[in-house]
């Protein structure tokens, strides 16, 4: 797997506003219901969403296509909620894809819950500009540093994030002790300089 793709993000100091192509597309959709922009976005993101749906290979190709449609329709509907000051367009699309996939898994398992995955996503609108800037910088740092992680750590992060496996499931699949999985995840997260409170 290629860890860090070609860089599409261009920064303009000092506001740090993202002016990359995908943010522009989202803005065009939000402001003008621009179908050409949506088509460009679709051609870029739909194959990534499908890859995300199929990783872990528990989802059929039909369901993966269904997920692609569902996510891209949400992108169209919710484009106005995207704020380029606080996140990259790809991060925003990823969180929608993750939520739709979680909901789809629950539907497929006939799991009847009054809660949707998006209810669980922290709302950042209330955050201070400084916190937004920090979030954005950490995203940028993580993108740069992912490529330098040892393969055994990247492998587990891929299980956890791309395949949506719990630490215990990742341990079972990789035939590793749970403690090893936990410590590799923790090491990776520390290397990526994610800040967290001690439990």
């Amino acid at each position, binding site marked *: *797997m290629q860890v860090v793709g070609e860089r599409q993000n261009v920064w303009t100091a000092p506001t740090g506003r993202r002016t990359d192509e995908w943010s522009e597309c989202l803005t065009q959709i939000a402001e003008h*219901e621009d179908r050409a922009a949506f088509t460009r976005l679709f051609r870029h993101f739909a194959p990534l969403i499908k890859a995300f749906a199929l990783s872990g290979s528990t989802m059929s190709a039909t369901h993966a296509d269904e997920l692609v449609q569902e996510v891209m329709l949400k992108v*169209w509907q919710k484009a106005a909620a995207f704020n380029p000051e606080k996140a990259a367009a790809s991060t925003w699309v990823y969180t929608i894809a*993750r939520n739709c996939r979680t909901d789809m898994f629950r539907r497929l398992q006939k*799991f*009847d819950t009054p809660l949707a995955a998006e209810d*669980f996503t922290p709302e950042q609108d209330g955050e201070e500009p400084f916190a937004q800037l920090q979030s954005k910088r950490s995203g940028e740092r993580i993108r740069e540093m992912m490529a330098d992680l040892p393969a055994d750590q990247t492998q587990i992060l891929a299980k956890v994030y791309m395949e949506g496996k719990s630490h215990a499931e990742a341990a079972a699949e990789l035939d590793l002790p749970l403690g090893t999985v936990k410590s590799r995840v923790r090491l990776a997260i520390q290397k990526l300089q994610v800040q967290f409170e001690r439990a």
Partner: protein
Amino acid sequence: MATFHPQLELLTEHAAGSLSVAQSACVAAHLNYCAECRHSVVQLQNIGATLFESADPSPVGDVLLNRVLARLDEEAPLHHSSAADQAGNNATPALLQRLMQGDFSDLPWRKVTDALRITRLQTGDPNYEFALYHIKAGGVIPDHGHRGSEMTLILEGGFSDDRGTYHPGDFTYRRQEDEHAPQALADQDCICLAVLDAPLRFTGWKHRWMNPFLRLHAG
């Protein structure tokens, strides 16, 4: 501001979307109180986003694109309404309000001891019980260990145990081997959210008889 937080492992699974509904709801409720952990989750999501954008693309044909384009008319873009007033305040988390459909006083509380009443909320999660505990001011939850794990989030008042004193927004996660006897603070009743993956097991001789009554009520 919370002083007791979820473990990194729980935040990671929450950010990756792999935590069960009931546990994820409890972590999300903590995030409602805690800007630090919200910030951590945003960073943890960035790890997922980086893996996502560098995945090997899986081909998608124009048939699918055309199908989506044909549906855009039915799905008009939504106008964004700010949810700023929901973040970072200490009111009952919106997600819990949805599950409760009313105030604490409207819920069907069941008396377990003189000091403890319990009401269960339906999350649809088949593996975890999701319940609110109401502990009278100064009341003690009998000494108990856990057959599985127990996640707790303080919503009102507070309690203390051998590890410290917990206030609204504080989060604890106890495993099987841990035994504790939390006591509500003297001046106020305590309401907390508890997520259990197996029934509590009381270890004090006086309350051992209650064990059969505390079967798991998941769902």
